[in-house]
């Protein structure tokens, strides 16, 4: 059950970003989880809730966007969904010498929703902000 280690890493990274942005809380975390990332989404969701306790992320929602596996054969240019278990030999020409995995191993924090301290102007941080609500 390394989902606990992964959840702890997610919480630590998001909390660090939230603290340095002057946020009071984090209400949502968005992840991208590849089909071949070796992570069980349900287990991750369960661990995430536990890992959030007593942090800026307490009670935060987790939105995990699944990323399907895709591969491409350089020999014949075929492209296919890998499926699970993945097929990493070309289904068209049966060669495997030049197969590339295009997507499916992602395990990334895409973004988060931060709550600012009440009655204060938003902290004057610039870079990671994409939209304001």
């Amino acid at each position, binding site marked *: *059950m*390394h989902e606990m*280690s*992964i959840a702890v*890493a*997610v919480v630590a*990274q*998001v909390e660090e*970003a939230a603290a340095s*942005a002057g946020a009071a809380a984090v*209400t949502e975390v968005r*992840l991208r989880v*590849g089909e*071949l*990332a*070796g*992570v069980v989404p349900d287990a991750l969701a369960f661990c995430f809730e536990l890992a959030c306790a007593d942090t800026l992320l307490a009670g935060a929602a987790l939105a995990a966007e699944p990323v399907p596996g895709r*591969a*491409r054969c*350089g*020999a014949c240019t075929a492209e296919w969904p890998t499926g*699970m*278990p*993945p*097929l*990493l*030999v070309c289904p068209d020409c049966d*060669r*495997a*010498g*030049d*197969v*590339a*995995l*295009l*997507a*499916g*191993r*992602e*395990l*990334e*924090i*895409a*973004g*988060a*929703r*931060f*709550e*600012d301290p009440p009655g204060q102007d*938003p902290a004057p941080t610039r870079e*990671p*902000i*994409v*939209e*304001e*609500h």
Partner: protein
Amino acid sequence: MCRVVDLQQAVLAKNTSAAQTLRTALAARGTAVVNLLSSPGSGKTALLERELGLARERGVPVAALTADLATENDATRLARSGVPVKQVLTDGLCHLEAHMLGRHLDGWLPDGTRLLFVENVGNLVCPASYDLGESLRIVLASVTEGEDKPLKYPTAFGLAHLVVVTKTDIAGAAAFDEAAFRANVRQVNPGVEVLLTSARTGEGVGALLDRAVAVAEGAPVHVPVMAGRQPAHAHGHGGHEHGHTGGAAGADTGRPRSATAPTR
């Protein structure tokens, strides 16, 4: 007031960079790490006992570190070979991480060690996600576990530099279908070498040590498709699929050796 922020961070970035740092630091000392992954009871310790004994006979400086949830039994068994051995108890953690390994090597790993074998916690799921700074990742399965293991644990087998079948001395009794096993390995990790071994008879013990020593001497390792060969890097590797004996095929020499880094 709330705001949506864009973060775009790899979750395992910390482990990946710790692993890279460790790999570089060990390379500077002339040491290559061999990471051994399998289900509980596949025969990691038994095979390792043979490898350590043979390495000692051949005069190859080796050491071994074994990680378990509990008990020092494996270290006791490995120490009989007479090479430096260390037991790490993970306190319930189901896998080793790069910073933990680094911490355990501090002040212990003898200078001049050529190969450090790391027996990971018996588990085919979790350890697969953690690069330990190894130069060679070996995934083992015994003949009694069923030919479909590679399909049930595609992350582990898909990221292996070398696949090892253990306990071939009982392959007949277990009705092990080698062709089916190889076909399943090929589906998730085309081009990876499959080596047959038995700790009982000694089959494959020398070949496995040869592979590890070659990697320590800088021979290129197999690059699994799952480890994310970028299309931009393709430089004429059409059909070298069968040339990977011991990772000696030259097609991937231009790639960094950290073949287990996750794709981004």
